[in-house]
């Protein structure tokens, strides 16, 4: 075949475009700027602890909705057990963190010097993600034979299995929950006084979008979209559909595990009730609010949804009447979600001149 060098940056209209320096560096620069702002926010006390927590929840929700979008949006399967994977990630990283870096009544003194948490923290979050990815493998297997409603039921069941398993494990607190993660976070702060949780939440959110974007825009990852649009054709046209499903499910659930690990360390306390079917539903709402198959939509909806939940907090339990009502209205008037299968740059093509996110 012709080996004429073609730029990988090919736009949908078929023209090959070499990015300008501005396009190439705008996203990394923006990421660094974001980290700098958060650093300032954390150090100066310009925002209250509460506002900071809301920002961290936003980042966690971005990870949750973007990762679920891979399976429910890009691949077109219907998985509703995302909370279960968050639980796996949350518990594995919490237990690991407390075991290694904090003194605990059950686990005794830390196995490693607490100041090592500085390096250890991102690693334990990633290990939590890895454990959740392995749990995702179990959900991938039934997806070989069934999809639609049946897969939805299986994933809900998986969610419940995880929750019941945790509830019955007394070593990690059972249904009372597990705590001690604040000590891990404090250990990081003692080693070097920075707003670590703010920085890591933001960092992992960017990492999630980066990894998903690269996956979905490679010819390899596009196999996932081929499965969504016609699974039979995908298999016949040489896409190994089973392997693609395993890859997508594991990536999606692994990132959910990362979100769970961050959540646990932000709150400083986990209990199995936080990762039940309500959590999974929140994840679904965010995916459908933002638009299936749209990463920027997922980010947008995660931010809006977090703000909405906080704004409705005074309503207490009535919140859970208002939120589903909003979902019904959304389905009624804009069933494709805010961006609906398009990225922000597709809606505003002018944005393409300023950045490139690959």
């Amino acid at each position, binding site marked *: *075949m*012709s*080996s*004429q*060098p*073609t*730029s*990988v940056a*090919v736009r*949908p*209209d*078929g023209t090959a475009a070499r990015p300008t320096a501005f396009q190439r560096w705008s996203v990394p620069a923006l990421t660094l700027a974001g980290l700098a702002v958060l650093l300032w926010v954390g150090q100066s006390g310009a925002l209250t602890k509460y506002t900071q927590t809301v920002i961290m929840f936003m980042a966690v929700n971005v990870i949750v909705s973007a990762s679920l979008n891979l399976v429910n949006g890009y691949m077109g399967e219907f998985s509703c057990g995302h909370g279960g994977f968050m639980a796996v990630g949350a518990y594995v990283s919490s237990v690991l963190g407390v075991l290694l870096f904090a003194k605990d009544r059950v686990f005794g003194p830390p196995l490693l010097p607490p100041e090592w948490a500085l390096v250890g923290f991102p690693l334990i979050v990633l290990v939590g993600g890895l454990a959740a990815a392995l749990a995702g493998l179990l959900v991938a297997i039934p997806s070989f034979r069934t999809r639609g409603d049946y897969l939805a039921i299986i994933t809900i069941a998986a969610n419940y299995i995880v929750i019941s398993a945790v509830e019955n494990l007394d070593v990690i607190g059972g249904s009372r929950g597990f705590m001690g993660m604040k000590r891990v976070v404090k250990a990081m702060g003692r080693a070097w006084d920075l707003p670590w949780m703010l920085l890591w939440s933001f960092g992992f959110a960017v990492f999630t979008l980066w*990894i998903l974007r*690269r*996956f979905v825009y*490679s*010819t*390899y*990852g*596009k*196999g996932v*979209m*081929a499965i969504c*649009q*016609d699974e*039979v*054709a*995908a*298999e*016949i*046209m*040489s*896409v*190994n*559909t089973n392997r693609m499903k395993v*890859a997508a499910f594991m*990536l999606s659930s692994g990132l959910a595990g990362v979100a769970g690990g961050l959540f646990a360390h932000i709150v400083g306390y986990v209990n199995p009730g936080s990762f039940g079917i309500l959590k999974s539903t929140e994840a679904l709402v965010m995916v459908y609010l933002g638009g299936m198959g749209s990463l920027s939509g997922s980010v947008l909806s995660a931010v809006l949804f977090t703000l909405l939940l906080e704004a409705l907090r005074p309503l207490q339990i009535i919140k859970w009447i208002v939120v589903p009502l909003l979902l019904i209205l959304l389905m009624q008037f804009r069933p494709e979600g805010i961006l609906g*299968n398009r990225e922000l740059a597709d809606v505003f093509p002018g944005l393409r001149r300023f950045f490139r996110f*690959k």
Partner: protein
Amino acid sequence: MAVLEIRDLTHYFGGLCALSHLNITLEPGTLTGLIGPNGAGKTTVFNLVSGFYRPSRGEIRFAGRNIAGLKPHQVTALGVARTFQNIRLWKDLTVLDNIRIAQHHRLGYGFADAVLRTRRFRRREAEIDAYARELLEVLELDHVAGELPKNLPYGLQRKVELARALSVEPKLLLLDEPAAGLNTADVEELIRHIRWIRDRFDVTIWMIEHHMDVVMELCSHITVIDFGETIASGTPEEIRTNPAVIQAYLGDDEI
């Protein structure tokens, strides 16, 4: 060696015998037809060859290797591509993406390469892209590369599906009713097109078709099946005058 050798191929759906004792040999570079009335089991044959069903009995040898029981993507990776009776393009992915994805079996990189954008990934993506563009150009489809198939007219969709099958770089191409839904002018173009594809891409073609003029014009050998049974096999002339074929198509006069 024969490209495809089917021996005693039999398939049951539950208790229903959809295909019984089919024997066919396809020599390299030939154009062969498979015809029969509706429900005769023609598409079942293609589904068996492409690995969609596991045959109840019999052998399917592709280039000397028994492929019965392989998964569809494995069969395709060996060099068997097909089109569908009702077009099955990925309608919301661009034509270019459709062609690119059909090279999945020779991507040559994996998940880690895609995420880390390794040299191998960049090189292979560039090659896949260049190959897809060249293929579209050769097939005179380059002007629709950026279009979504759902926005294309029916005849073009058929051509794109053919292009997608060719991007597998098949040795054997199965065409399931390529002329379905085309008008007379399109059919004439299709006949020229198929013959040209066989010569240009050096591929063996086996087709199911209801348009008798297409089959008679193109195929050097035709097999006729009815209710899963092979009722005739031979050159177009032999088939045209075969009483069993005429009976299968026109019905039995006796009550």
